[in-house]
């Protein structure tokens, strides 16, 4: 079963545990500046929204790469950057419609979410369930269950 990161902004409190977990997993240091998932704080509405790569099947970054440094991991479904092949040309950062692949000055390469090899640290660290790692075919299951509950378990209007 392929799994994907699923984000529910309504549950996000803006604690940035996900950003620290990401940087700690990948760099061994707590550095939100190096995180591949970012939480956006829209303070006029109070909304906090985590955002990261959704691992497109037909990935713009993969197709744009001139040296084939980006490949799909057949086990996890993640598009992964091979650092030894990447030349830091940044074409993928232009090609990606979502902005979720970015250049890293310190390494001269690009980085993106690779699902931590199948156990994403961000989802593990999220204290509220705003970020979960779930069945790719059933990302709607939670919402369906809520509406099914409404349909079947609430007193009818009549």
């Amino acid at each position, binding site marked *: 079963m392929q799994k994907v990161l699923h984000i529910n902004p309504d549950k996000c409190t803006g604690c940035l545990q996900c950003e620290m977990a990401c940087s700690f997993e990948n760099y061994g*240091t707590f*550095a939100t500046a190096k995180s591949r998932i970012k939480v956006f704080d829209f303070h006029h509405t109070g909304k906090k929204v985590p955002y990261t790569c959704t691992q497109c099947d037909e990935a713009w970054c993969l197709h744009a790469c001139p040296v084939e440094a980006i490949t799909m991991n057949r086990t996890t479904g993640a598009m992964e950057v091979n650092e030894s092949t990447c030349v830091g040309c940044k074409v993928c950062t232009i090609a990606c419609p979502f902005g979720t692949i970015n250049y890293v000055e310190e390494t001269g390469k690009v980085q993106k979410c690779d699902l931590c090899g199948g156990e994403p640290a961000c989802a593990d660290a999220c204290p509220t369930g705003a970020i979960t790692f779930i069945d790719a075919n059933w990302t709607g299951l939670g919402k369906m269950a809520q509406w099914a509950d409404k349909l079947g378990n609430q007193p009818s209007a009549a």
Partner: protein
Amino acid sequence: MSWTGKILRVNLTTGAIKAEPTNMDWARAYIGSRGLGTKYLVEEVDATVEPLSADNKIIWATGPLTGTMASTGGRYTVITKSPLTGAVACSNSGGYWGAEFKMAGWDMLIFEGKSPKPVYLYVNDDQVELRDAAHLWGKSVWETEESLKKSLQDPLTRVSSIGKAGENGVLFASVVNDLHRAAGRSGVGTVMGSKNLKAIAVRGTKGVGNIKNPKAFMKAVNAAKKVLAENGVTGQGLPAYGTQVLMNVINEVGALPTRNHQDSQFEGAKDISAEAMATPRKSDGKKHLVTNQACFACTIACGRISKMDENHFTIVNKPQYRGASGGLEYEAAWALGAANGVNDLEALQYANLLCNEEGIDPISFGTTVGAVMELYEMGVLTKEQIGIEAKFGSAQALAFLTEETIYGRGFGKEIGQGSKRLTAKYGHPDLSMSSKGQEFPAYDGRAIQGIGLAYATSNRGGCHLRGYTIASEVLGIPVKTDPLEHEGKPDLVKAFQDATAAFDSSGLCIFTTFAWGLPDLASQMAGACGDEYTTEELAKIGERIWNMEREFNNRAGFTAKDDSLPKRLLTEPVKTGPSKGKVNMLAEMMPKYYAARGWDSEGRPTAATKARLGL
């Protein structure tokens, strides 16, 4: 070992900026944040210094757990000598600024001297510059943050700054970061303003590494997070209701100071409670509360984000206050509300927004307004002097006086001096509800005996966060004690004060202690910094910090007689409710407290105590 090992020293008089190594012997003995920052202050500043002179210093300090995944590990402390109290000032804030500064590679930031003109400090990892702030002077905290993010072309910059109140010398001006998190008390923002320092803008990309034992640390962090999640207060009560969950609780036990401590229960408490914030308003059918919000790394998320009623009289023509913003938290809701007899939730949030926007402490402000209203009702102050009819319960007066105070206009200038100076000026010093010149927070020291002792002995003056015995006396954490009973409270207060000093110095939030004890801190400190941080060692360090602060105050001229409470709490019994007839039994408790502390009858640590603590 989780410290960065580097301190930034900025001389505002000369403009010299210097990086220096953190004194690791002191870091070992005082941990960080409150403890380590205060150690630097007491070593470098004469305790008799005039707080608003160039000779005072002001320090921003992070702890070893700031900027890590330890839950709530985002805090920093601002340390200086207070212009409000003349005692040590030590105000702690959450939000994101502290972690960002630590991630830039610094443990602490020390400002010396006074800048000849308004400046702000820009820190981008190792790039540190004092920059002209002429264009920011006269701007609010909110405008300053927005302007800096824009001019630096970096939305990820974090800003710690003062508003107009800090520039204008309001004696309880705060330092505000991330729009609505504040190092709120004792006038740390006033000292910042006196140095012509407007803001510190920080971008940190290095991160916090150098964890002593990463595996043990993460194991301890995860176990401690689980404790928070499974605890009723930190896992359910605080995220759902925030600190405001206390409003009805404290009112029901008869300990909600009302109308300048004339009463101990407020008939309007339910109107300004957490429950009211979560109930649709009659006026527009919308809820006041929008959502909760966490500070950096916090898995509790007690912060409140609210939206006001757009048609409320305070903001009818002020669209800038219509968006979601911080508040109300319990202490502010009490100080702006019950302390003045005001039960208009929207008016309280308006006053609270102004406190954040221009940087003042709502506790000292609200309590001072309470004293003004009492003086007005006594006929000592008139409508002409104040500029409005200042009866208890008047939301109009509260809104008006908030504006006058933050903008430094009219009678607001007098309110900006705090209740001690104001009540003394008008011949009624007993009506200042304060200790050491700092106003009390939201618990009646007659109805809760231990908190009265904690107020009287707090090293920064009237304060609940130096020894939150409410946890034990009202909530039963870690064990229930009788709030009306004074026996046993000296030892309880000491234990809370010492443990709090250790937590405050680590970079974590004191609210974790609703669920955690020192062993939970010890396991995380040991993983991050080394196995020497045992529970016993942390308690001892906490006690060492407490005595260090005490000795600074003693050198500043404080004596045993300053460990006091206003006459009202000692001689005017509570009129109604569960605590009816009670006064605070301070005279009974104080000798036992001094004995428990190992202090002489003048409140000075004995030679034996100092030797035991390595002072």
